């Protein structure tokens, strides 16, 4: 009977150990000229918002927490990042047409305002990602200002 229990216990532990060898590639790219921060001068507050609430999944540079390294959490995190980057990758900002940049700004501001983004699950684990009303307004104001600049640029092109 004792032996039986030992096996029951040992199987999950062994499995857990084995899956640690299957780790997804880390999202730790170099920051290039195309990164949003390199492309335009942002107010400090907006940079903080983006760093704290967006860039982990919407850029090529994720800041990992310790438990993100452990499978199966690492798999889940990896798929979140892949989805986030497919929607919007701010490391690629410089590669886009002004019209696409404008569209992205509009969507970002809308989703932040409505609370769709950042995701609740993310905010739960990253308290700094919880945006205040003030921060949301600040982001909105910035996105509108940059959009107006882009509009002028497109009209004058």
């Amino acid at each position, binding site marked *: 009977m004792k032996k039986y229990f030992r096996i029951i216990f040992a199987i999950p532990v062994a499995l857990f150990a084995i899956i640690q060898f299957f780790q997804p590639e880390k999202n730790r790219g170099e920051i290039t000229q195309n990164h949003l921060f390199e492309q335009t001068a942002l107010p400090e507050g907006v940079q903080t918002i983006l760093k704290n609430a967006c860039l982990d999944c919407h850029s090529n540079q994720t800041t990992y927490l310790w438990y993100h390294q452990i499978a199966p959490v690492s798999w889940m995190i990896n798929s979140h990042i892949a989805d986030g980057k497919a929607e919007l990758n701010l490391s690629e900002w410089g590669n886009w047409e002004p*019209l696409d940049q*404008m*569209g992205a*700004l*509009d*969507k970002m501001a809308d989703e932040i305002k*409505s609370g769709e983004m950042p995701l609740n699950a993310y905010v739960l684990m990253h308290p700094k990602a919880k945006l205040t009303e003030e921060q949301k307004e600040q982001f909105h104001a910035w996105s*509108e200002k940059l*959009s*107006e600049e882009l*509009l002028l640029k*497109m*009209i004058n092109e």
Partner: protein
Amino acid sequence: MKKIMLPAFVFATVIFGAFILNTAYKNAPIVGEKELPEQVKSIIDQSCFQCHNADSQNEKAREALDFKAIDELGKVKKITTLKEIAEVIEKGEMPPKKFLEKFPEKKLTEEQTKIMADWSKKEIDTLLGK
């Protein structure tokens, strides 16, 4: 008796007024309707407007886009809205699957999709002065 006349009159006026305003609003044409090409208008009426109007029960759709109010938007918002219209239609995200299960006839044909996408792109170019 006289005492309740005034409140009753005010009450009746408000109710009546609201009623008139409400119907007037509902019957108002889609803003900019005159400028909408016939084909675009009929596609919007057929497949979009049911949810994307100011009185829609569908809160998300109503807030995302009210076809009547497009002309009232600022230039940037108008451009991004038009861009989004083309995108979600081309990607097949709109009209939504659930809606099409109920109303399969409202699915956009390839031709209709192209008409909407071309229209929105042309509008954007016009707004950009091209």
